[in-house]
């Protein structure tokens, strides 16, 4: 059964999936999601940071301040073990949604 929080879950899934590859700061995270989805998914600043903070509260990700090569401080987010655990059911839910939609479109075209 697909949960009601799927829409929010997809954004969380996008963030967790990208962070699975390695730690990133907010701006690069948003760019990476946009690039990998070829612009289909994009995060504005107002959508990204509240989402990151909420995920950090749930301990799925952890943010730490790091200095870049230019000396500028940036907050890098990395996946926690709890976040890794959360990623699996989110992926399953997302996959189930896709399959359901595919079945639906096939049925309507038949």
């Amino acid at each position, binding site marked *: 059964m697909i949960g009601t929080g799927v829409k929010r879950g997809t954004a969380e899934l996008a963030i967790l999936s990208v962070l699975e590859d390695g730690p990133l*700061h*907010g*701006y690069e995270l948003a760019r990476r999601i946009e690039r990998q989805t070829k612009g289909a998914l994009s995060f*504005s*600043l107002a959508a990204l940071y*509240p989402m990151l903070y*909420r995920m950090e*509260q749930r301990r799925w990700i952890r943010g730490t301040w790091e200095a870049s090569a230019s000396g*500028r*401080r940036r907050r890098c987010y990395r996946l926690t073990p709890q976040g890794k655990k959360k990623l699996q059911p989110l992926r399953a839910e997302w996959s189930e949604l896709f399959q359901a939609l595919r079945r639906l479109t096939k049925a309507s075209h038949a």
Partner: protein
Amino acid sequence: MHDWVQIVRERLVNLALDDDNAAQVCEELASHLEEAYQSLRNEGLSEQFAITRVLASVGDWRVLQRKIESSRKKELSMPDRVTQFWIPAFVTLSLSMVCLALIQIFGPHPWVANATPRGWRFVAPALLVYIPWLFTLPFIGALGAYISNRAGGRARAIFSATIFPILPYMVFFIIGLPIAIILDDHIAHNIMIPAFFVGLCAWVIFPGVALLAGGWPVQHFSSRLTTRRISNG
């Protein structure tokens, strides 16, 4: 070179987070905006156009502020609720009761000479106790507001803690007054509705105003100090 931290701070000046939290959020958002700006500049956009586009991409700053506040704040846990509301509330309630008792014990003890006092003579003995008590309430309200504010209480918690001593009376008058109006003709005590209004003023409105007279300035100046600390970094 633009001071992005300052630009963000100016727009999120009322961010209701503690100083450290607010400073971190401002720095992080500033870093994001600066990178977006640099990216646009590298694409060949003019300085002014790049700034305008970056700031426009944020949308409504008040919406962003609300979203950040709700995502950044933890659910009010039990210990927070205790320190921000219950402790200051019971301090104001118990102090107001203790003060009333102390004034009655150690204050003036007027003799009622006239067998059937009327007018001012009728209310004067009560006023000799009541008025000094009213004068103690602003200090009690200020103390309650200070304790709640110091524990990180928000405006609603501070306000509730400040006026807590009148809440039991308010509930009584809200329930008692309609019941009296309904039952007045059916019970033997002949409850006088004007007496309820006198009671409402004496135990709810006047003490409430007195408590807020002390509590509100503390709340107001504390929040202004916090805002100034955030804007000064």
